[in-house]
């Protein structure tokens, strides 16, 4: 049978060793009423050739950037991934190993985790980073839960900017729903597409637990974070930033420099394929003084009995396998292989490559935005500065859909389902993967020529 190496003679000898004659005797202590209904009714197994055919047939029904021209971002980004990344993460020594609970035979994974933590600290300008969480949305929820552990019970109002990714807001709301003392307050956005500073000044007070804002936010806008930092400093709330496009942090003033207490986000854009939005990884960084409240795994440096440097999982008394119901989180994974992909990605690009790639994104996105406004007559919706995504209004959006389909272009993400106030608005993302010719076609198709 596929993947089970037992020959008839193996089975017979093994059963004899155990003192049985039939396989079924291994489970005859299970109630008969359960056993008699247990047969699985699925198709028969397929040969490897047929498996590949079936999978290829399913894959062929999907639109990929090879056949279509994408201008999609909104939390998942199409970037160039150096071949070094898949070469490393395909190595079975990394992909088929378990969580490094036996550090003597897991130094590869542990050192890479430690390097990952360092890279994320450098990129975000924060003091400590964990080894990874599920995704940006649950990392945001974990940040709020950490703020709840740190803050006193008199602070139970969570302020979340409406310009934060709508799915992230939804996940935060799901996680908080059953913690009945905690209240979620939405902060509106202003004309710039930034978190409303007047609202912050008015509403964030001594009851505030934390303020959460996107950087860049869901509209692609690079928010001026000083008003949020000031509101937090004044009121004692914790300042949480969320970054869905961490490549931008190679160029932008990092959350740490803005005074963030916790900076989280989605790491997919750093070397992980889009893969319909998962798996990627959530990153989680914060001030050092909060480290014992941190959710998730941490690799730390130590030495062996001979003084050789080595790495171990550490501060695990925060975690579920030790602390059970008192753990800082229930999480039991760190999306390690995806975090490794990001580590290889950042190591390959390095200091200059990361910045260059970020600049190419800014260049192309601004070029495209300018052309769409000037030549295709679309209206910019927000005035704030942006990285590689921007919002435009196009009155004829619904009508032009068939034209885009014919051209095999997906021009962006329609915002109306999440923001009724943003009818006819499109979130357009342009990365280094969009060549000039693609932008040309996008402008032409919008113009209707």
């Amino acid at each position, binding site marked *: 049978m*596929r*993947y*089970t190496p037992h020959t008839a003679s193996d089975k017979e000898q093994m059963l004899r*060793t155990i003192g049985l004659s039939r396989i079924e005797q291994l*489970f005859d202590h299970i*109630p008969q009423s359960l056993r008699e*209904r247990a*047969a*699985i009714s699925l198709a028969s*197994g397929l040969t490897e050739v047929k*498996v590949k055919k079936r999978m*290829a047939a399913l894959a*062929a*029904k999907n*639109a990929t*950037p090879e056949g279509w021209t994408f201008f*999609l971002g909104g939390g998942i980004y199409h970037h160039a991934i*150096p071949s*070094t990344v898949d070469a490393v993460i395909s*190595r079975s020594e*990394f992909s088929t*190993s378990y969580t490094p609970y*036996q*550090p*003597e*035979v897991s*130094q590869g994974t542990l050192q890479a985790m*430690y390097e990952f*933590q360092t890279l994320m600290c450098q990129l975000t300008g924060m003091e400590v980073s964990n080894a990874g969480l599920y995704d*940006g949305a*649950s990392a945001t929820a974990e940040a709020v839960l950490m703020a709840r552990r740190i803050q006193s019970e008199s602070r139970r109002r969570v302020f979340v900017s409406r310009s934060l*990714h709508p799915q992230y807001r939804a996940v935060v709301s799901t996680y908080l*729903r059953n913690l009945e003392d905690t209240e979620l307050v939405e902060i509106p956005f202003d004309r710039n597409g930034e978190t409303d500073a007047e609202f912050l000044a008015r509403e964030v007070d001594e009851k505030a637990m934390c303020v959460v804002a996107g950087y860049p936010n869901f509209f692609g806008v690079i928010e001026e974070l000083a008003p949020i930092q000031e509101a937090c400093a004044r009121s004692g709330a914790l300042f949480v930033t969320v970054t869905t496009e961490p490549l931008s942090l190679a*160029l*932008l003033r990092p959350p740490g420099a803005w005074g963030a207490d916790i900076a989280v986000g989605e790491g997919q854009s750093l070397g992980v394929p*889009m*893969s*319909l*939005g*998962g798996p990627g990884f959530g990153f989680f960084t914060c001030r050092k003084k909060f480290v014992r409240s941190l959710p998730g795994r941490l690799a730390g440096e*130590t*030495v062996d009995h001979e003084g*050789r440097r*080595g790495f*171990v999982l*550490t501060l695990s008394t925060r975690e*579920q*396998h030790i602390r*059970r119901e008192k*753990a800082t989180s229930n*999480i*039991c994974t760190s999306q*390690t292989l995806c975090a490794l992909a990001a*580590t*290889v990605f950042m*190591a390959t690009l390095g*200091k200059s490559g990361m910045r260059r790639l970020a600049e190419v994104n800014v*260049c*192309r996105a601004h070029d495209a935005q300018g052309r769409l406004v000037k030549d295709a007559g679309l209206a910019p919706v927000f005035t704030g500065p942006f990285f590689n995504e921007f919002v435009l209004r196009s009155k004829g959006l619904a009508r032009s859909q068939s034209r885009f389909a014919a051209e095999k272009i*997906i021009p962006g993400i329609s915002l109306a389902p999440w923001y009724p106030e943003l009818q006819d608005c499109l979130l357009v993302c342009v990365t280094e993967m969009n060549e000039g010719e693609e932008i040309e076609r996008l402008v032409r198709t919008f113009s209707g020529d």
Partner: protein
Amino acid sequence: MSEHSPGTDLRRSAPPLIFESGSPGRSGFFWPEEKGEGGEKIPSELLRDDIPGFPELGELEVLRHFTRLSHLNYAIESQFYPLGSCTMKYNPKVNEVVARLPGFSSLHPLAPPELIQGALELLYELEEMLAEISGMAHVTLQPAAGAQGELTGLMVIRACLRERGNPRRKIIVPDTAHGTNPASSTLCGYEVVQISSSNRGMVEAAKVAEVMDEEVAALMLTNPNTLGIFEKNIQEIAEVVHKKGGLVYLDGANLNALMGIAKPGDMGVDVLHINLHKTFSTPHGGGGPGAGPVGVKSFLRDFLPVPRILKKDGSFVLREDFAKSVGRVRSFFGNFGILVRAYAYIISLGSDGLEEASRMALLNANYLRKKLEGAYQLAYPEPCMHECVFTDRLQQRHGVATLDIAKRLLDYGFHPPTIYFPLVVSGALMIEPTETENREILDAFADAMNSIAREAKEHPDLVKGAPYTTPVGRLDEARAARKPVLRWEPAKE
């Protein structure tokens, strides 16, 4: 074996950190300059200088670094990995090949549904296949891991009970449960009531009845439990819980023991999660990504997370308008790349192959148990399913503990079993061979374990000083926790 390794073998020594090598200006990335500097489009007060300390390496340097790191790892494809409760089975290569098809790996989650029909079809079918295997009515694939599946399942239970009038306050968890069970309960706003299992390693219905009242929302049970024992009273236990209006949650971590043998859906289970990185062969990746789908009985369907995938006139649509839903637990569609691998695994094996997998998992575990029971004390005499638990009681007489046995196994070239878990067994050694291992490797592992048992008797200090042959010796974990160093920093001038 007792000789100390010189530690000079390049393949076995750690490379410097990526921050400690390289040279300013070096990069493995080439992209010619484009018109207009990017920074000029953005106000300067929003920009940073370069990233201090960031690596500056060439491409070959990067590859050598990570290749050398990889040599320091133990992995399924190098050797047997008998970790109990982790199901370290072979991760088939074809799954890796198909998951990398651009038609899966290059999909954007916000593309219009009509342009990702193949992906939605795969997800829809995977939900149905997992429902069939587990005997549940509906499945959501959104949770990113087992623990997130637990949280999702408990949220579903809470939403259902809230609708019935009272979300209740407590969750019953046996002392043999995974630590995630109580941690997820807390996160869902519940108090944990722990019950002890019997001297036969099982939960007794009478014990549940003692603590079961109208404030208990659910009982969380793992079956087979973490002792590898089938909870044969589960139907009776479910009845006790249901009578008082509670629900039964099954931690499906050990589903690898049950395929074709017993379906959780027939056991009185209302909600369960499944770890695709265990039973369904997706790689562990050194600690994720995994996936933790949740299955429910039909009366709980409307509480499942959104979006849900529905089939309509032969095509697949996404729907979010379910008023009773617990909401969204993860962005987009969960860990799609992992779901693709699990789908490929299921269609590769089919019904017969899945059933045979569970049978051979039981055969391998019982075989190892037989081979080891002379030298090690079994925690419980009950029949075992896919894993078995021993203790260090016999070795303790010579001052040798489970940790020593585990470290000594490394010198024999084997990864240790899961140790000190479940917590109810003092010095537990929890062994799960899985079905993909052959008899010869099981024999070799048993020989190593039995040899260590002899060493424990004759040369206990040899065992207590292990390991001798690994790239680093026993690491000082207390020091790491006392003064945490969690990142590299440049040396201060």
